């Protein structure tokens, strides 16, 4: 039981991942699809951030004693996954911006952002 609770953040990751992925596949509205994609990507960010956390670990800044000497045997959290996710966030933002601008142009060209209606218009051509 404590194991399941201890992995609470991973449960959240899995739930978010599935919510995002389902929205991505099942929704016909192009904006909702992008929202799904974004939730999907965000769940991965949460997963990485959880990787970096170490039980009892502190922020990875060198801990100094009263006289400025380095204190030994301090447990630090791992900063690398967090730094990696800064890059992933930037990528996610760029993807979302590009996706939304494509949706704007699709709306201008087709007059709709519903996948089925777009397919119908393409087939009618």
């Amino acid at each position, binding site marked *: 039981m404590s194991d399941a609770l201890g992995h609470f953040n991973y449960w959240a990751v899995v739930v978010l991942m599935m919510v995002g*992925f389902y929205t*991505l596949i099942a929704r016909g509205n*192009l904006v909702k*699809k*992008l929202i799904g*994609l974004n939730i*999907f*990507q965000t769940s*991965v960010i949460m*997963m*990485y951030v959880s*990787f970096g956390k170490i039980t009892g670990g502190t922020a990875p800044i060198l801990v100094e004693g009263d006289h400025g000497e380095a204190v030994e045997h301090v447990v630090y959290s791992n900063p*690398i*996954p967090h730094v*990696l996710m800064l*890059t*992933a966030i930037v*990528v996610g933002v*760029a*993807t979302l911006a*590009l*996706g939304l601008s*494509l*949706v704007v*142009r*699709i709306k201008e*060209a*087709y007059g709709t952002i519903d996948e089925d209606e*777009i397919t119908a218009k*393409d087939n009618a051509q």
Partner: protein
Amino acid sequence: MSENLPALLIVVPLMLAPVAALVGRAGASWAVATAACWWALYASLALLLRVWDEGVIRYALGGWPAPYGIEYRIDLASAFVALIVAVIGAIAIPYARTSIAREVAEDRAPLFYTAFILSLTGLLGISITGDVFNVFVFLEISSLSAYSMIALGQDRRALTAAYQYLIMGSTGATFIVIGIGLMYVMTGTLNMVDLAERLPQVADNRTIPVAFTFLTVGITLKLALFPLHLWLPNAYTFAPSAVTAFMASTATKVSVYLLLRFFFTIFGFQFSFERMQLDMVLMPLALVAILAMSLVAIYQANVKRLLAFSSVAQIGYMVLGISFGSVLGVTAGILHLFNHALMKGALFMAMGCVMYRIGSVRIEKMAGLGKAMPWTMAAFVLAGLSLIGVPLTVGFVSKWYLVQAALERDQWAVAGVVMVGSLMALVYIWKVVEVAYFGELDPDHEIQEAPLSLLVPTWVLVIASFWFGIDATGTAEVATAAAESLLRGLP
């Protein structure tokens, strides 16, 4: 300077990309893009020669040694793939000038060239980096710029094609990030060499097979292996002709390289093929891709779409070669990667010429073009022969290796499928040839031959596809050495 060549190969185009956007005029941006492409060609050729002479190059970015900093690690396979990307870029860019001026509004041309350079940078970066998270970053650089280039197509369906590619491509990339994260959490490293050393120690943990699965799905989505190819036909059909020619010969090829890198170098042959039985997944999918996609290609009325489905089938050949897991098979895969880049580039460029003159690439519009545009259609026929696999062409060389790899394992049925695939290629190429050479030219329209600026790049690729078909010793030697080093794993 020469010792920093690995970094400069990436940094120079990356710095030139904003310059191309800032100069703001189509001609000047084109000149910047040309400089970037020719620099990449020079640098990647120099790197390949150095790797051939001296062995693997390891370059620590910013002077930070490998486990802490990002490392570029260039072996034969990566130098070879980088060279393919650079060659196609250098040939596509002179072609792009005329073709893009016709198909893209002039005020958007500078942004097009910026996206083109960024895409080139990303693809080069994927091929030479030695850090798995860096792979993801470069993958996204190349993909995001590819989406925006596709969206520049004239037809409004280019927009939906770009959107669909964005959704599927980002999903694939996210799968790759999940896989990388799971590997990182088990080993604590992102460096490919370190990963290869540490993964066997934790391979019994369930996390590693899960990471492997995520990576497999993500990469096969990016390389458009059947049945994850759905983004490809529309993207290739509606993108501007120059973009299609560039992407068809580079983007999926680099993803094939990623497949090789992850499965052979990082996870190792033993884990990928004996524990996870990758061949049981890849081989059936590759065979279905060859047969089903060639069949679909036969029924297409739009020639660019026809060639796009044919590309999915050809990717089947590459993956088939890899799925043998033998030196001969992987050699065939790498050879076909190079050879297919040449011939598909030539075919799509020939279609760009047709698009330039008659504004459509539907088969019925091409009646009698063999007389009106003799050089364009001759290029199409010769590159088509290569796609079919006629002797003296590059297509024959890669199929020869592929059939040998199949017979080495006594898999006669697989060799048969390769043959049937070639026959089907004959059918769909013949469909175009029949209309173009035996159809009646519409007497109302005066159709001229395409301008030289389009014909010369097309013919360079056509001649290359015969050159390397008649004398395949050079490419075969490099491909065999690359395959051997991949299968041997890391020293």
